[in-house]
């Protein structure tokens, strides 16, 4: 146990549960000074929960944390600061109406009292040292995503943290910004800081870190030295045994244009252009995959089709499967789209925040789509209850009863309820955003089968995914989106991972990810 001697931080047998969900089980790992450790794991493997315990957001149910060989009790973020632990969260923890400087000094008891101007000068100095471009007086609500991340990083540097934890820091960055960040991190490693980077991107792990610890479903799998490993080994650790996915894929039967999107542009709430001139066609009897780095406009694209996102320009045409009649879905509300006879089903990314109502039971959630039917002013609960019963049986939903609020179900079961309902509406277009995120293997295959069955029934399926292997085995065509632009359309049967990976990171200047 030579590592233990100078380990900056060591975790032993950490366990954390939320209600019945075990987020971390017996996790042990350690980080040395002057080292970058990657924590690798799929979505939902418990990486973030673990780091939240180090930074005092959560308190472990069991286990111990050692800092410099001494046991540390980190009951609050304040304690974490005292141990010089700095965390850069995936979701920025910034106060929107504060300036960069105000956010950076927040909670920091600096010597010499409170003086915004002096703090701003220090921030400028730090920025220059590391090559950030940031106006210390700029308000956060006026900032771009990458500027916000800069604030988060400077915040930690400002406090002189020597243990840094970065939670998926590159998810929102351009390749150039990512390279910048990695340079900074390497410089800090040379300063003797201990750095933990949470990620699920293998190439980042390999290019940046000294060692890799792998988590799978909340459990600690092991730690390897980067120099002595390769993608294949890491993947195997991450997903368990090497799984050949073997998702069935049939040839599309008689594909016809079902949905044609033409030159769609739209902006998000902050006025940032999020979709740039997007055009594509989704055909019946076919699964169209959408690949891309998280937050590249996938959500907005699906919401635009579903009538939840206003377009600046562009058209969305729908062709009726029976009559072939063309109708334009642009500027229509979800209700209008429904009333036009377009059977559009949508499994959104945010299951409990958008697709379902967490506090309602399964029956009432079934009703979300169907409650309007009939002329009566009253809702009929019998059909949705039957549907709920049916879905529970067909999809093996584990639930105490149909009357259980869906928020109490596990992630996989929540998803089965949602997908089950959307399919029950016998759609002609089915859009699913990250439908297997956080699901176990069995549930994932169930979802793939459901999508395939829809495809065979002649539905135009649009599948937004993050796992390239899945996309490549499931989809007939894969469209790649990068920073709101379509960067390529490839054949799912012939394309390679590398090809898609390159397209995903292609930006305006034609640069690629390192």
């Amino acid at each position: 146990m030579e590592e233990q001697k100078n380990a900056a931080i060591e975790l032993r047998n950490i366990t954390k549960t939320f209600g019945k969900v075990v987020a971390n089980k017996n996790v042990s790992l350690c980080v040395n000074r002057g080292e970058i450790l990657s924590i690798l794991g799929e979505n939902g493997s418990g990486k973030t929960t673990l780091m939240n315990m180090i930074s005092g957001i959560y308190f472990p149910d069991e286990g111990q944390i050692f800092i410099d060989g001494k046991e540390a009790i980190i009951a609050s973020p304040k304690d974490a600061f005292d141990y010089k632990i700095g965390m850069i969260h995936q979701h920025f923890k910034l106060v929107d109406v504060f300036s960069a400087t105000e956010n950076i000094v927040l909670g920091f008891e600096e010597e010499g009292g409170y003086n915004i101007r002096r703090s701003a000068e220090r921030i400028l100095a730090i920025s220059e040292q590391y090559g950030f471009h940031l106006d210390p007086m700029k308000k956060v609500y006026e900032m771009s995503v990458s500027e916000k991340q800069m604030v988060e990083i400077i915040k930690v540097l400002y406090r002189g943290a020597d243990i840094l934890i970065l939670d998926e820091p590159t998810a929102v960055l351009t390749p150039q910004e990512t390279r910048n960040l990695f340079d900074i991190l390497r410089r800090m490693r040379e300063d003797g800081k201990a750095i933990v980077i949470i990620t699920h991107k293998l190439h980042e792990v390999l290019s940046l870190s000294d060692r890799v610890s792998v988590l799978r479903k909340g459990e600690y799998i092991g730690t390897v030295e980067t120099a002595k490993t390769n993608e294949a080994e890491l993947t195997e650790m991450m997903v368990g045994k090497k799984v050949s996915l073997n998702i069935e894929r049939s040839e599309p039967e008689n594909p016809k244009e079902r949905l044609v999107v033409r030159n769609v542009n739209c902006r998000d709430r902050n006025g940032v252009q999020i979709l740039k001139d997007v055009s594509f066609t989704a055909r019946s009897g076919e699964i169209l995959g959408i690949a891309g780095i998280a937050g590249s406009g996938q959500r907005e694209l699906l919401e635009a089709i579903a009538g939840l996102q206003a377009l600046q320009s562009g058209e969305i045409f729908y062709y009726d499967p029976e009559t072939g009649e063309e109708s334009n879905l642009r500027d229509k509300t979800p209700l209008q789209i429904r009333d036009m006879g377009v059977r559009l089903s949508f499994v959104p990314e945010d299951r409990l925040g958008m697709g379902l109502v967490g506090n309602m039971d399964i029956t009432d959630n079934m009703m979300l789509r169907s409650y309007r039917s009939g002329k009566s002013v009253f809702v009929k609960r019998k059909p949705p209850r039957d549907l709920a019963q049916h879905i529970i049986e067909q999809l093996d939903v584990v639930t105490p009863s149909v009357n259980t609020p869906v928020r109490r179900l596990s992630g996989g079961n929540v998803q089965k309820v949602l997908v089950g309902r959307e399919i029950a509406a016998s759609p002609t277009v089915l859009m699913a955003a990250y439908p297997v995120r956080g699901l176990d293997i069995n549930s994932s295959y169930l979802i793939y089968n459901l999508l395939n069955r829809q495809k065979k029934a002649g539905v135009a399926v649009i599948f937004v995914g993050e796992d390239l292997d899945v996309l490549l085995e499931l989809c007939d065509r894969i469209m790649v989106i990068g920073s709101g632009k379509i960067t390529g359309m490839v054949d799912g049967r012939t394309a390679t991972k590398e090809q898609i990976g390159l397209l995903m990171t292609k930006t305006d200047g034609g640069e690629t990810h390192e």
Partner: protein
Amino acid sequence: MIASFIQRAVVQGIPLLFGSTGEIITEKSGNLNLGIPGIMYVGGISGVIGAFMYERSLADPSAMNPFLAVIIPLLTCVLGSLCMGLIYSLLTVTLRANQNVTGLALTTFGTGFGNFFGGSLIKLVKSDMPSISLTATSNCFRTTLPFANKFGPVGQVLFSYSFLAYVAIVLALITSYVLGRTRVGLHLRAVGENPATADAAGINVNRYKYVATCLGSVIAGLGGLYYVMDYANGVWSNDGFGDRGWLAIALVIFAIWRPNLSILGSILFGGLFIIYNYIPNLGMSDQELFKMLPYVVTIIVLIIISIRESRETQPPAHLGISYFREER
């Protein structure tokens, strides 16, 4: 006449200023305390109880020690409103109860408390006094600067008030300074804007909420005391305080959560409250319409800030929402 109008507007405005300064501090911590009207009642009656006990303990009111006569009601007032602040914090911060319901219950309780003791105090202590009239104490509170009258109308507008009025203005200025220019103020604002962020930054969210709410309650309570001792000459009458507590909450919006603006706002509200006295040939009925003005003005401000959507003038983002760290 303008001088006397302004002077009276200020006297009307001071209880509102106390209330709104207290409520601003509270709201900045994310707590929408609708119990302020009740707290101001409790502050008033607690001061009255203290003064009443002190006056009763003296054989001869003229032997009153002016220092004690001020300090005892002040202390009892602070104590009374502090208790109210503690009840609110305990329920909404520790027990995470709904803030609106808690606040309204506190107002019911506080107004009841005030009116109950106002009506029953004499009976409870079996005193032979006919009513609660604390003229002697009130005189101590109402001592003004000696040179006020030497400066004519200017003196009347600027110097003719009792010390509590200046306390109100100084408190508002201090609050404004603390909120804008100090670390404590920065932390407090962060708690109200985004408690999760404040928590992650190592700020003790619950402690800030407790302290801000209790301090806010104490300051608001002083408004009740000022009303009884200065405005009402030491005579407590049930429901006499009226809707001033709600007006104080309105003033918070009007001043877009800035205590320095609420100084001017309070004088304006005070002025709107009494302007009917200064408009000739106004019928009794029209006076009632004029009393509506502060509320109408507040609604207009509320509408304007929500339509303009300027981020600088919005209510604290987490106003009215309890914070729980392990929420997921």
